[in-house]
């Protein structure tokens, strides 16, 4: 106490003398320094800012509750984060080639990007698919495309993350079917499906069915995997997209965890035990520009989630309280102007994610403001991670910034801000209600608008865009999706449809419909469906007929 009083007095002295003198000659750059969450940065943080709490309670040890310092005791001293570059485009053959290239170059996990028709349950020949086939990811219509995608890649030896949501159940079934054909059992496969439908309504837009039936599909997947695919991460509860849509760092944590609470509750409501499925929940966060705020954000999220799992859901096992997450650097910060600058941005963002303790990381490529990354650009993105891992030294100490007055103060503040939002959401009835009312969407749109205004009034500086601009001639070689892709994919689809047993397909679709109408787990009949080469569109339409389609709210 005495120490503290002394420090407070000394700080005052410093402010009134040394600081005052200096600032009267050289004023500070701004009146107020704020983070994206409007957290005001103090000029200086000292031990005065430390909460009186016990170190053990607030920070603890890595690998132990509340996991502020990391979910593994050795963190990167044991094993580096997984370098997992999201990719996929055009056809399964081309994507398969890119995967093999990346694995050769040292990538340690696969991440599959699917095209929009696949994500939204349309076959490549559907009218809504016009112009979209193979553009933002690989086109998958039937199991035969999936077989091509993983040809020559042993599914018992890689871990695969699939960014798929509304149609996750179908693509997971296909993955298991491919593994089956390779002689790999379901209990051997490792990977993740994003499977986070709530954020689709809020920020990403690839939903199909309304919220309630979508939650049912998700809990079916939880239940099935718990018994059959124990190493599979059944959901990647995402904040990345909400951040990309314009939310602040605090909102990113708050809305992600609010959605997570809804999923956990839904699983409990169908009779699952929290300690049975919680360890397979994983998260997906954004990594944005403000280094200090971002590092603190990850630590705050870990601590807050651990508390929620223990105090609200009474999880008994430590693994149930661990917030394991993948991070992607912020796509929305990439500029069209002076694209090489993006390499630098990504490097700092990636650094923040590592200092924040991420389990896996995707780094964006410099040309992504305009297109999917070229081979060279994606190699540089991967090298960025490798340089951080092998050359910067930050991976050699666990949670190296812990104890920094600034970082701990920010961690506390972000946690408090997020908890306040969650309380508000609880008061209204939870994430699903709040999404149906459009509250999350509006909060995010408001943040986004303010941010844009900040750029246009130069309150926020974006190098190369509103400051330090040059006249540029576009020169970059970017990746172009060959328009032939769509035509070829439609041909493949036709061929696959001809080869299969139509009666069998009809029977299997019928079985899926029946299961959808009852409470029967949807995964087994969908697995039967994909084995018979029913298409993504056919299975989705079967479910649409029972569940209806979601209608957008603003």
């Amino acid at each position, binding site marked *: 106490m005495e120490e503290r009083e002394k420090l407070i007095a000394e700080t005052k002295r410093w402010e009134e003398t040394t600081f005052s003198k200096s600032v009267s000659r050289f004023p500070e750059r701004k009146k107020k320094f704020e983070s994206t969450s409007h957290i005001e940065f103090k000029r200086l943080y000292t031990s005065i800012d430390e909460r009186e709490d016990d170190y053990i309670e607030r920070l603890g040890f890595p690998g132990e509750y509340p996991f502020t310092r990391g979910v593994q005791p050795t963190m990167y001293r044991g094993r580096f984060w997984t370098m997992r570059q999201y990719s996929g485009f055009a056809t399964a053959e081309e994507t398969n080639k890119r995967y093999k290239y990346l694995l050769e170059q040292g990538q340690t996990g696969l991440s599959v990007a699917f095209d929009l028709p696949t994500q939204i349950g*349309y076959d490549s020949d559907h009218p*809504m698919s016009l112009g979209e086939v193979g553009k933002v990811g690989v086109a998958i219509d039937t199991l035969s495309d999936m077989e091509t995608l993983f040809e020559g890649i042993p599914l018992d030896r890689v871990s695969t993350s699939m960014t798929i949501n509304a149609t996750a159940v179908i693509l997971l079934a296909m993955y298991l079917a491919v593994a089956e054909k390779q002689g790999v059992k379901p209990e051997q496969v490792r990977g993740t499906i994003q499977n986070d439908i709530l954020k689709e309504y809020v920020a990403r*837009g690839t939903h199909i069915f309304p919220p309630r039936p979508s939650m049912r599909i998700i809990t079916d997947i939880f239940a099935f995997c718990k018994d059959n695919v124990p190493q599979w991460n059944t959901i990647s509860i995402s904040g990345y997209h909400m951040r990309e*849509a314009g939310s602040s760092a605090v909102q990113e944590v708050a809305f992600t965890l609010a959605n997570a609470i809804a999923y956990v509750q839904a699983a409990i409501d169908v009779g699952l035990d929290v300690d049975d499925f919680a360890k397979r929940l994983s998260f997906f966060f954004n990594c944005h520009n403000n280094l200090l705020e971002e590092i603190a954000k990850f630590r705050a999220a870990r601590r807050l989630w651990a508390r929620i799992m223990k105090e609200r859901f009474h999880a008994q096992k430590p693994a149930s309280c661990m917030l394991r997450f993948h991070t992607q650097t912020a796509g929305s910060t990439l500029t069209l102007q002076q694209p090489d600058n993006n390499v630098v941005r990504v490097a700092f963002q990636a650094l923040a994610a590592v200092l924040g303790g991420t389990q896996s990381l995707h780094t964006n490529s410099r040309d992504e403001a*305009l297109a999917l990354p070229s081979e060279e650009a994606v190699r540089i993105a991967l090298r960025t991670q490798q340089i951080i891992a092998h050359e910067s030294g930050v991976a050699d100490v666990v949670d190296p910034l812990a104890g920094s007055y600034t970082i701990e103060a920010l961690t506390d503040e972000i946690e408090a801000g997020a908890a306040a939002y969650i309380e508000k959401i609880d008061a209204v009835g939870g994430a699903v209600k709040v999404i149906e009312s459009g509250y999350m969407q509006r909060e995010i749109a408001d943040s986004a608008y303010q941010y844009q205004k900040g750029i246009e009034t130069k309150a926020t500086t974006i190098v190369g865009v509103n400051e330090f601009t040059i006249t540029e001639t*576009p020169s970059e070689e970017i990746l172009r999706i060959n328009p032939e892709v769509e035509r070829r994919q439609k041909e493949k689809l036709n061929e696959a449809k001809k080869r299969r047993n139509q009666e069998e397909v009809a029977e299997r679709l019928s079985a899926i419909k029946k299961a959808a109408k009852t409470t029967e787990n949807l995964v087994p009949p969908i697995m039967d469906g994909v084995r018979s080469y029913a298409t993504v569109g056919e299975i989705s339409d079967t479910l649409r007929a029972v569940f209806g389609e979601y209608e957008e709210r603003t």
Partner: protein
Amino acid sequence: MPERKIRVLIAKPGLDGHDRGAKIIARALRDAGMEVVYTGIRQTPEQIVNTAIQEDADLVGLSCLSGAHMTLFPRVAQILRNKKAEDITVIGGGIIPFEDVAALKKAGIKEIFQPGTYTEDIVQYIKQNVKPRQ
């Protein structure tokens, strides 16, 4: 008689669900005194054109981030021509590489706004290039 209000349609054709930009533009145009019909995501070109006609829009703003712009934007322009409504100005934005801009303009898209564009520039563009019929 007061100046006629400019009426604009902001729409996202195709399957791309990222509406941050479209919503920001809609808001900026509203703040500039325009009436903005916002039809959200997953619009077909046919829906967009019919809406533009029913709403007597002066301008249609299309947003696409999925790379499908070369198919979808010209289709909107084509259907407008078919319905003899080519006097409705069409502009576009999103993830659109430089190389595609010329082709899009040739197809009838009057202007393309790329990432980094200020909303204020779009407001000014519309005010200068679009006049409601007198």
